[in-house]
C-alpha cells in the first residue's frame, strides 16, 4: 500500500453548515497509526482539521474516536489493520465541539459523582498503609483505565439515560470499593446502587469490547451489583 484514503468527519456547530466527511489521500509509511495519518493531513494537506492528542502511546486517553465503525484510540490503531479506506469520526453520543473533538463535560461530571478518591477512616500511619499483594491484585485491572471515554460512548444505556453514570465512573467506583485501604464502600454503594447507577447496566458488554486497555468493565459492574444486593438484604 503506497497510499490510502482517510475520510474525516467535519463539523463546526457554530458555522451553520451541515456535517460532512472530507476525504484525503495519505501516503502510507510502515507502521503508520491513525493518529500519525491525522498529523500527516494537518501538516501537509489541511490545517483546518481538529482532533485531540497527547502521549501517542495509548496511555493518556486523549485520542479516543470512532474509527471504521469501532471505538479506538487513534494512536493505538495501525492503518494497516484497517484496509485501504479509513473513516474517522468523533466519539458517538457526545456533543461535538468541532470535527473529532467532543465535549467530555458530562463524562467528567459523572466521574466526580462517585467520589473518585481514597477515603480512609483511620489516620494514616507514619509509613505506608500495608497492603497484601493479593489485595493489591484485586484492583490491578481497574487501575489500568485511562479515562478515554470509549466505553461511555459505546454504552446504549448512556445514550438513552441522560443521568446514567456510565461504565467508566462505575469502574472507578469499584476500583475504590475493591481497594483494601478504602473505608467508604457504603457511601459509594449508596451512590451507585440507584437508578442512575449500576441498575441501569443491562450487561450489553459494549464497554468491555471497546476498551482499548482490554478491561472487563462489565465484570466490575457486576461485582458492584452483587455488593449492592448484599447490602440491601443484610
Amino acid at each position, binding site marked *: 500500500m503506497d497510499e490510502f484514503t482517510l475520510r474525516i468527519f467535519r463539523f*463546526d456547530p457554530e458555522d451553520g453548515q451541515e456535517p460532512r466527511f472530507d476525504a484525503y489521500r495519505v501516503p502510507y509509511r*510502515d507502521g503508520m497509526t491513525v493518529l500519525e495519518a491525522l498529523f500527516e493531513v494537518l501538516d501537509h494537506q*489541511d490545517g*483546518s482539521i481538529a482532533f485531540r492528542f*497527547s502521549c501517542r502511546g495509548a496511555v493518556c486517553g486523549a485520542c479516543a474516536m470512532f474509527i471504521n465503525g469501532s471505538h479506538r484510540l487513534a494512536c493505538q490503531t495501525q492503518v494497516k489493520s484497517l484496509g485501504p479506506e479509513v473513516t474517522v469520526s468523533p466519539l458517538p453520543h457526545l456533543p461535538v*465541539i468541532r470535527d473529532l473533538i467532543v465535549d467530555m463535560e458530562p463524562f467528567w461530571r459523572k466521574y466526580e459523582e462517585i467520589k473518585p*478518591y481514597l477515603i480512609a477512616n483511620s489516620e494514616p500511619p507514619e509509613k505506608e498503609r500495608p497492603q497484601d499483594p493479593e489485595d493489591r491484585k484485586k*484492583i490491578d485491572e481497574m*487501575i489500568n483505565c485511562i479515562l478515554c471515554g470509549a466505553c461511555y460512548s459505546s454504552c446504549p444505556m448512556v445514550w438513552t439515560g441522560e443521568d446514567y453514570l456510565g461504565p467508566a465512573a462505575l469502574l472507578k467506583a469499584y476500583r475504590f470499593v475493591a481497594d483494601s485501604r478504602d473505608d467508604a464502600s457504603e457511601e459509594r454503594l449508596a451512590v451507585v446502587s440507584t437508578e442512575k447507577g449500576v441498575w441501569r447496566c443491562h450487561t450489553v458488554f459494549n464497554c468491555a469490547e471497546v476498551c482499548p486497555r482490554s478491561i472487563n468493565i462489565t465484570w466490575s459492574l457486576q461485582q458492584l451489583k452483587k455488593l449492592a444486593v448484599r447490602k440491601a438484604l443484610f
Partner: protein
Amino acid sequence: MKHHQVIIVGGGLAGLRAALEAVDELDVAVLSQVHPVRSHSIAAQGGINAALANVSDEDSWERHAFDTIKGSDYLADQPAAEILAREAIDRVYESEHWGCPYSRLENGKIAQRPFGGGGFPRTCYASDRTGHALLHTMYERSVLKKVKVYEERMVIELVVEDGTCHGVVALNLVTGELEAYLADAVIFTTGGAGRIYSKSTNAIINTGSGMAVAYRAGVPLKDMEFIQFHPTSLYGTNILMTEGARGEGGYLINSEGERFMEKYAPSAMELAPRDIVARAIQTEIKEGRGFEGEYVHLDLRHLGAEKIMERLPGIREIALDFAGIDPITAPIPIQPAQHYTMGGIDCDVDGVTVVKGFFTAGECACVSAHGANRLGGNSILETIVYGKRAGEAALKYVKGRESGPSRRAVEEALERCTELVEGLRTADGSEDPAAIREEMTKVMFDKVGIFRDAENLKAAIETLVELKERYRNLRLSYRGKRYNLDLARAWELGGMLEVAEVIARGALLREESRGSHARTDFTERDDENWLKHTLAYRTDDGPRFDFKEVIITKYQPQARRY
C-alpha cells in the same frame, strides 16, 4: 478578567501537587493545555525513587543523595539533591496515603526495584505504569480538594512589570479567544521540551512552550545543553521501553550477539546511567554492530513469561501494539531517543525565580537536582517534592504580598498578545510551519544529539538562525478561530526555535564532556573551567550567556565510574 490568588500553569504531577499545597488556604486555579490526566506525567513507567529501605535496609536518603550527585556528574547543586532525596520519603508515603496503588512486597510494603545509577533497589513502582497510577491519584486528590481547572488553555504570555508577576494571558483553544488572568502568584509546571528533537519519547504536547514563555519574559534558562537521551526507545515510534525492563534483568544485545555493555560499564552493565548506556548503543550502531544500521536488541526472553506479564505488562502491550513483537518470544528493537530536559527555568530550591511572584517546578524548571544527567526514577520524584515546595513558597508569598497584581499590566499584555496572535492567524507569507518544524527537529537530533562537536554544532546554529528568519514569513492554512491547531502549533514552533537555539549555543559554548553532554572534540570533564551552570538570557539577537556557581557542600567531584 478572571482573578485567582495562585495560578498554576500545567496539570501534570508538578502542577497538581503544587495546587494541592495551596488550595486549602487560597483561591487556586490550574490552567492546562490538556485535561490534567492527559499530561505527559501519565506516561512515566518505571517508578519513583525514595530510600524507603523496604527491600534493602542499608539504603538511606544520604545514599540516594550521593547517587543523584554522582549521576549528575557533579553539576547538581548538592543541597537540591539532598532535599530531593530526603523529602522523597514523605512524598511517596503521602501519595500512598492519598491512594496511589503501588505494587507491594510480600510483607505489604511498597515494592522497590533497582534502577540505573542507584546503589540499592530504591525505585518504588506500580507495575510499569507508575506515572499513570500517580497522576490519577493526584488528580483524584484535586477533585476531592476542588481545585479549579481551566482546560485547553494555552498560556502564551507571563505578565511581568517592574520585576513582579501579575498574571498570564492564555489562548482558549476551544473558542480561539485570548483570555487574561490576573494572579498574585504564578507557578509554571509546563513539562519538558522533548519535541524539539525528531526522535523523542515525549508526548506530542511537550514542546517546551512554558520555558519559551518564561524566557521571553526575561527569566533565564539554565543548563539547557543537558538533554537526556534514553537508551531504549522502541525503534520506529520511539515510545519508551522503561529502564525497569533492564532493572528486572533485561539484556542489551548487538548484531553479533554480544552483551556489549561489558565493554562500556563492566560492573554496572545494563544498569549504568542513561547517558553511558545511550552512548554505548549509539557507538555500537555507528560501528556497524546494530541491526539494519538503526537499532540493537533489548532481550527479555530469559525473564520468562510470568515475570514479564507481572512486572512489565505495559512494555509487552506497547511492543505488541506498536511493533507487533511479543517480548516473551522475541527481542525488542530499540534505539536511543531524546527523553528528558535537565535544564529549564532557573529557580532555587523553593521554585523561586528572578521575577517576584513567579515560581516554577517539575521538568520545565531547573533547580538543579539532576545536574548534567538525571537518574531514572528521580524525575517524577522531583515533580512532587519540588511541586510541593513551589506551592508552599507561592502560598507564603501571596500571604505576605502588600498590594494586588496590576490589572492594567495584564490588560496591556492582552492587547499585545491579541495583535501578535491575530498576526499569526492571518499570516500570509510563504513559509510552511510544518517544514520548518521538521528541519528543526532533524537538525537537533543529528547535530545537537548524543555526540556533539564544534563543527556540527555550528552548522546546527546556522540552520536554526535561518529557520528563525523563515519563521517570520509564515503562511498558515487555516484562519478559523475554534480549535485552530494550525495556529496553536505555529505559535509553539516560535518558542521551540528559540529554546533550540539556547540548547545548541549552550552546547557549543560548553567545551567539555559532562553527563549527557558528550563532545567528541572535548572528551574530558573540565572542572577547572566548567564546573558551573550556564544561564541563557533572551535578547533580540539570540541568547546571551552568563554563569552561576555550582553549590558543592559534602561531596567533592570525583571521576564517575560504573
